[in-house]
């Protein structure tokens, strides 16, 4: 291996090791430490000057106390379960909204497609925080939606949507919609229309051709889209914090509060370690899926 190659590989490799992998090691270490009234607020801290004996003493002080604490307090496991539930339901809802849109885009006249594509991508470039915030003005008690519904006479009293789980679902579907549309659209666009014609020639009705040909061929895009929504939704913080209520339990919010309000670094780290353990399976599956598609394209 020559020096130049070593440098080209070495620079991004070292950066990711230092700023991505090492931090996780620290999180795991602190999740095994005890909280302390000190700076930094945990003990023990690693002192390399103590030599081998110091190292041994350091490891003997680590324990699983924080993890035991997480299983004892119902707040944490209900938060994990409720995050899983909210992420699953909103992924399915996003799929339900995104699939017809991606299908419509793929069937649109060719000269429209670039414009439609841009209309999907444009919100993606706009600030995430602002897009979530825009729903606060719509879903509130005196918001735009209630105003319209009252004016139309559909309801007599304003609905309470903001600060409930419904608002969280709407927020997740809204902000992650482009992530679901784009991969589905790219598989549907590549789909050979003559396959559907062939199915229809062979006696399929339009509906059964859709279910037997179009849907199975769109699976890679659907799978990629679902992972792209489910994984970030599970650890979501901004949406439950701005649109959810006090009873909306999501683990991202719990971690945030543990860190910023309670200043309990070891428990916050333990919460992060378990969240990561839950996420590692979908993340690996997602990477396998991407790898397979990459190899299929080549």
């Amino acid at each position, binding site marked *: 291996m020559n020096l130049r190659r070593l440098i080209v590989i070495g620079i991004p490799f070292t950066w990711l090791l230092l700023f991505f992998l090492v931090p996780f090691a620290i999180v795991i270490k602190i999740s095994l430490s005890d909280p302390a009234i000190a700076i930094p607020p945990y003990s023990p801290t690693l002192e390399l000057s103590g030599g081998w004996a110091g190292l041994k003493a350091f490891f003997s002080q680590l324990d699983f106390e924080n993890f035991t604490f997480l299983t004892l307090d119902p707040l944490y496991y209900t938060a994990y379960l409720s995050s899983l539930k909210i992420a699953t339901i909103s992924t399915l809802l996003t799929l339900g909204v995104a699939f017809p849109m991606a299908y419509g885009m793929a069937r649109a006249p060719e000269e429209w497609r670039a414009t439609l594509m841009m209309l999907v991508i444009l919100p993606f470039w706009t600030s995430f925080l602002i897009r979530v915030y825009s729903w606060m003005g719509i879903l509130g008690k005196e918001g735009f939606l209630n105003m319209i519904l009252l004016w139309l006479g559909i309801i007599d009293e304003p609905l309470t949507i903001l600060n409930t789980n419904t608002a969280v679902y709407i927020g997740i579907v*809204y902000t992650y919609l482009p992530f679901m549309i784009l991969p589905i659209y790219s598989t549907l666009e590549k789909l050979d229309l003559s396959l559907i014609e062939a199915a229809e020639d062979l006696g399929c009705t339009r509906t059964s051709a859709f279910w037997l040909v179009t849907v199975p061929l769109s699976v890679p895009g659907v799978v990629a889209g679902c992972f792209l929504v489910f994984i970030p939704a599970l650890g979501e913080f901004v949406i439950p914090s701005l649109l959810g209520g006090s009873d909306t339990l999501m683990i991202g919010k719990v971690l945030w509060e543990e860190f910023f309000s309670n200043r309990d670094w070891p428990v916050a780290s333990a919460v*992060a370690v378990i969240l990561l353990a839950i996420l590692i399976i979908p993340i690996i599956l997602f990477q396998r899926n991407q790898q397979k598609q990459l190899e299929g394209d080549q």
Partner: protein
Amino acid sequence: MKKLSWFNLTTLTLGFAFLYIPMIVLIVYSFNGGRLVTVWAGFSTKWYGTLFHNEAFLDAAWVTIRVAVATATLATILGTLAGYVLVRGGRFWGRTLFSGMAYAPLVMPDVILGLSLLLLFKVMFGSMGMTTIILAHTTFAMCYVSVVVSSRLLSFDKSLEEAASDLGATPFDTFMSVTLPIIFPAVLSGWLLAFTLSLDDLVIASFVTGPGATTLPIKIYSAVRLGVSPEINALSTIMIGIVTVGVLTASLINKRKVVQRLKDEKTAN
């Protein structure tokens, strides 16, 4: 090409209405004269005026832009290298680990990235500020750049690089005079992507920020937690406006290039 069926037309109309109505409502209400967000009190631009006299917002905007420019530049260099290594790097020790690390930040929840980087920076530097935000943003933004660059590298004709090295170019010369010009549009969109990601981030910045390094999203978040405010509506409208103009310009330039290429091909034939 046949026309769109009424079913597809309806889903597309409803879908895009869902995507755009919240932003349109927000923009319209930013021109509302009253303090109450829902009661229309006549057209006015006064909230834009108060916004431009709000020192705290202006300071935060300036910090955010400096962080975003530094992040985008660093992330583009590192991400282009990473994308190049992933596609052209061949086999090396730790390749699987490397590609795992290059993809994982794309899907890692912000709260975990933020917390872990904060703990690292506490050990490394002790204090936080703009530098730590830049380092943190670069780490996740470079992965996006690497994805954009590596997909461009995958789709271009490798024989061009081979031709250059057959003609005696060193790998470095080949990269600079053949590879880089071809992947340049991807590098540029990587820069823009990294820039917007940095501009947009609230969670990671909240963890690794320090005194004097309040970014715009941190400022907006602390303001909107209390509810909707016309000033934030005005600020959001400006931000949406800038992004829209940027994306439209980029796509127009792109379109003109495609049209030009088609013309060139026609005359060549």
